[in-house]
């Protein structure tokens, strides 16, 4: 049986185990005078049975699925005549692929060497055996697990604790996944980063004021390695994110306030999801909009008042990005503002406060922690956005604070370096990983500091 079929089967078994254990626990309870005499609700005995049924079976299933391929392949390869044994892993995978293509009828067996054709039938054989064994084993384990749980349906056993502990562990694993993700990210950039720093000194990277990796297109092309100073990238990131937040925070916050306090229920329930669509419009669309509509408009405007402006500007990218992240601020703020108890509003209104005073002085402070969460998310999204910046603000790493000039950001550089035509081993490509690592570290530090500050603020407040 295929894994794809076994999975639902195990789930069905778990449901059956649930039902049986539920009935049994009620049956056990009946002579004692009702379920109140059990240590836990029937639900918990049942849930425990379902967990016992499903979890070990799934683990075995996963393990089998993980190793089955390797083992079968080993056997198949070993069955080949010795002189045709592959010399490298790549060759092995080719031979195996050939064998499986023959087995699947995609290559004509007449056109391949005989030993391959033989191996193909062996492969088919092994695979069907493995499938059968797997199915039997998994079902057996599921049933055993359920049976064990069945025996443990007894009035003195507190199944609730078991279930809750398991759940709690699962919750913990979910939370810890964030740490694993972080580890994964570090793992995926660390090697290249180290290789990059073997070529470019850390000090130049951190304190250099020019970013111009293109001069290092090829090792044989230019004597120097190019310029890898991240400062213009970070100032660019800062500039654009700041502009974006200057748009998104007021617009988002005021929208949220308007929606939750002034707008009628109908308006609110339509406007909020409509605003949320802003977050889901593909960034390519924003990019075209920024580059073709907003940027030229800004340039014309600037020239009208006698300012010099680039046809790609940080301002254009920032403004459009600001619009994009509005829903992060507006929706999350709306939720927390809405969660402030009505009695707070009543308290303030009864004193003769206007709605805006109530909002500014009572609701807003009470909702502040949640609002800040929304703003941080918006800021994070702004830092991470690439497409808009590439199209509207360009790729020129100018060290400037003038929003009318074109700048570039860290993530844009990472993206263009990674997605563009990459040299497998040049400092240019490697610098993308170093940038990723650096950005990661910087935001991490900022978050640590933020956490400290929030803690302090909270302590003072309490």
């Amino acid at each position: 049986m295929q894994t794809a079929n076994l999975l639902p089967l195990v789930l069905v078994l778990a449901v059956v185990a649930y039902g049986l254990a539920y009935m049994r626990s009620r049956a056990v309870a009946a002579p004692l005078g009702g379920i109140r005499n059990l240590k836990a609700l029937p639900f918990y005995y049942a849930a425990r049975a379902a967990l016992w049924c499903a979890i070990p079976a799934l683990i075995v299933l996963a393990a089998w699925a993980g190793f089955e391929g390797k083992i079968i392949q080993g056997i198949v390869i070993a069955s080949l005549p010795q002189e045709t044994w592959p010399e490298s892993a790549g060759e092995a995978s080719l031979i195996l692929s050939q064998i499986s293509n023959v087995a699947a009828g995609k290559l004509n067996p007449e056109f391949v060497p005989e030993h391959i054709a033989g191996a193909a039938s062996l492969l088919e054989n092994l695979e069907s055996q493995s499938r059968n064994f797997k199915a039997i084993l998994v079902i057996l384990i599921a049933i055993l697990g359920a049976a064990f749980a069945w025996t443990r349906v007894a009035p003195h056993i507190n199944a609730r604790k078991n279930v809750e502990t398991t759940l709690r562990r699962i919750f913990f694993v979910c939370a810890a996944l964030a740490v694993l993700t972080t580890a994964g990210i570090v793992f995926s950039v660390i090697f290249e980063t180290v290789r990059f720093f073997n070529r470019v000194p850390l000090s130049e990277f951190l304190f250099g004021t020019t970013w111009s990796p293109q001069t290092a297109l090829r090792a044989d092309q230019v004597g120097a390695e190019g310029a890898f100073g991240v400062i213009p990238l970070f100032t660019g990131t800062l500039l654009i994110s700041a502009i974006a937040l200057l748009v998104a925070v007021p617009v988002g916050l005021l929208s949220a306030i308007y929606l939750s306090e002034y707008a009628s229920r109908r308006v609110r329930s339509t406007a909020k999801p409509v605003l949320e669509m802003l977050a889901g419009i593909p960034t390519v669309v924003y990019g075209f909009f920024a580059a073709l509509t907003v940027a030229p408009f800004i340039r014309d405007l600037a020239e009208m008042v006698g300012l010099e402006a680039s046809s790609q500007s940080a301002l254009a990218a920032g403004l459009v990005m600001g619009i994009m992240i509005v829903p992060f601020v507006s929706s999350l703020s709306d939720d927390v503002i809405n969660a402030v108890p009505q009695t707070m509003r009543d308290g303030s209104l009864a004193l003769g406060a206007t709605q805006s005073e109530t909002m500014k002085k009572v609701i807003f402070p009470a909702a502040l922690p949640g609002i800040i969460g929304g703003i941080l998310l918006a800021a994070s999204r702004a830092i991470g956005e690439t497409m808009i910046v590439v199209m509207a603000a360009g790729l020129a790493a100018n060290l400037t604070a003038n929003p009318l000039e074109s700048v570039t950001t860290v993530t844009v550089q990472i993206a263009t370096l990674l997605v563009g035509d990459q040299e497998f081993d040049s400092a240019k490509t490697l610098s993308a990983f170093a940038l990723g690592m650096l950005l990661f570290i910087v935001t991490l530090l900022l978050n640590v500091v933020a956490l400290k500050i929030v803690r302090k603020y909270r302590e003072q407040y309490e």
Partner: protein
Amino acid sequence: MSDQSSQAEIVRNSLKRRYRKERRFRLYGMVAIFIALGSLFILFADIIGKGHTGFIKTTITLDVTLDSEMMYLDDPTDEDQRSMADFVAPIIDALQDHIPEAETAAEKRELGRLVGNYAASEVRDLLENNPDLLNTTQTIEFLAHDRVSTYVKHAGNPRYSIKLSEQQQRWVDELVEKGVIDTSFNDVLFSRGDSREPSNAGILGAIVGSLLTMLVTLAIAFPVGIAAAVYLEEFAPQNKFTDFIEVNINNLAAVPSIIFGLLGLAVFIGLFGMPRSVPVVGGMVLALMTLPTIIISSRAAIKSVPPSIREAAEGVGASKMQVVLHHVIPLAMPGMLTGTIIGMAQALGETAPLLLIGMVAFIVDVPTGFFDSATVLPVQIYLWASSSEQGFIELASAAIMVLLTFMISMNALAIWLRKRLERRW
């Protein structure tokens, strides 16, 4: 009490000023909404203006005589014969019925280019499936060539370079007059995978790809996000490790999405040996990317559940887990859904990380499972938007509309749920 009346006086005097403030504040709110909605409106107008023609297809309906001599084909079931046969000839012949003036070989070839690139394949497939039709006359609706389509849809618009010769333009005008060339709703767009010919290209593959990817993302991100938020808010002891997790989550929210692509490449594809370009990997990468959004907003929602509710439940002897499952999560669900909606919307529109794990691929076949090579809507849009053919630019805008529709319908359910669950206490 004079105090009272004087204070009433003060209050009355202050009212004008305060109402001005109130009105101004309200106005700010309205302006903010206006800006946000206005931008959305402009964006939509832009997309629709560019893309509505993507929903129109141009067809040429011809009475084709499937003459075996003309095609050099005696037996349509014979593969060798099929591969040598000329399936274009009957089409040109049918066109000549309408345009008798095309006589030279060059003119005939020009004529043949009015129908789409795969017109001949259509004839071939028809005969292969129904060999009896040989030497009969069939009315067949062909897709017009992309150039004809552009000409018909945008005749007279100088922004579109019309790449038909004068002669072809005349012919097309004539055929339109006769009703041979006609436009109708572009069902091809919704029934096929990608193609290199704009008139043949569809987004069904991308839609299915997006659907599969989003399913994986949702199945991972929603439960895991909520579980993590619940753990951190309700169960986590105040210690260094919890702080560490918290910092990590906030930090992941700021990690550029493309880095998640690197992660997927290094871990899922490199370490675990999963295949490139498949929805499972894409879904997992996007799930990791959306998790912080869901966790952070869920935590905010959990925080805003009043403690009195927890006390009430604990007071009747509910365990911590019961309090959480029975009261906290239901009450926090609107906020959790908001996070999920935004996160999923973001995931649905994301391109960058998918580029690195190979979901930016030309895939014609509609994927049928989580392990089939697939692409997703935003990537399809990205690919089309960077193609040179003008037909693809229209399609890209049309695909954006489809993506937005997709997003709206995906969110509609969540929003409906949220509205039902929402209450002030």
